[in-house]
């Protein structure tokens, strides 16, 4: 049933966000710490586990695939509701700070990407 997939997804997200909120409280920051990441891990583990323990039918899968496919349209809607005006019209300092942070972060990617920890590098 399609709803099983949607419900499984909802379950993972609610658990993840709940754990993320608790983590935030424990650390003492006013933010959700990795809630969505925890939810994703949970879904990955459950879907990998399913091969041995329980079977996820194709209808159930399609309930998850639908939301996965809705991802880009949702991101488009998200882009359309950003406060672009505030970002553009706030003066140079905020823009310079944002641009510089992005530039430096991009420059770091190739450096960190070369590090493969805990891997048997045969090449």
């Amino acid at each position: 049933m399609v709803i099983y997939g949607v419900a499984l997804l909802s379950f993972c997200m609610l658990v993840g966000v709940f754990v993320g909120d608790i983590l935030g409280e424990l650390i003492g920051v006013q933010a959700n710490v990795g809630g969505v990441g925890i939810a994703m891990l949970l879904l990955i583990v459950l879907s990998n586990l399913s091969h041995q323990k329980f079977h996820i039918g194709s209808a159930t899968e399609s309930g998850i695939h639908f939301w996965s496919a809705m991802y880009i349209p949702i991101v488009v809607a998200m882009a359309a509701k950003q406060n672009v005006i505030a970002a553009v019209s706030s003066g140079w300092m905020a823009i310079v700070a944002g641009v510089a942070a992005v530039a430096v972060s991009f420059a770091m990617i190739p450096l960190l990407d070369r590090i493969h920890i805990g891997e048997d590098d045969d090449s």
Partner: protein
Amino acid sequence: MILDSLFAVLSKNALITAFAFVGILVWLSYEISRRLTRGHVHGSAIAIALGLVLAYVGGSFTGGSQGLADFSLLAGVGVMGGAMFRDFAIVATAFGAELEALKKAGVVGAASVVIGVVLSFVVGAVVAVSFGYTDPVAISTIGAGAATYIVGPVTGTALGAESGIIALSVAAGLTKSVLVMIVTPFIAPKIGLDNPHAALIYGGLMGTTSGVAGGLAATDPKLVPYGAMTATFYTGVGCLLAPSVLFLAVRAIY
């Protein structure tokens, strides 16, 4: 009268209107991609850019902070593009992700989050100093804003920064997320952002969930779960480090 009824139907069914509207927008973008760029610029990248342009138009017409969603007819776009559906769809993309790729990049991925927060904070702080700020609270708040637009206000509030500074920190974070959305598909080939390992590091370094989500969607949707995974830890780590260790470091210098 007909127009009135139409408007009533559209705004009463706001979320459904948003689905139809975004559908048309995406279709238009893929047509532009195919006909005007011969597929060189990916349709989703054009759709996201168009979304941002429309958000600018919406903001300048309504004076609101929700972009296109401030038009009452398109209020549903705000729901569809809000954090709830965004996070739900991001979690869904994890279905089918490889556990192996995650394990391999585990340590580097975690390190990239901490490095990303510190790096953006330092860059933002340096920019603040070069623009003449000398108050450690203001410098730290702007540095935190260069991390994400959530870390900025959280840090500013914790340190007691004035609201103008907090607004600047939000603007710095917004600039970052908009820029990451736009430039990622163009820079990705140059920095080897084409595999799960690099995507995990990218998510950890950039940290802006919306920027990473939009950027990777326009680059290669298969990479989305990996980048989003590390990015979701970034704001939490930022809220942890910026008002504490990083602020103390700034205060030690000034």
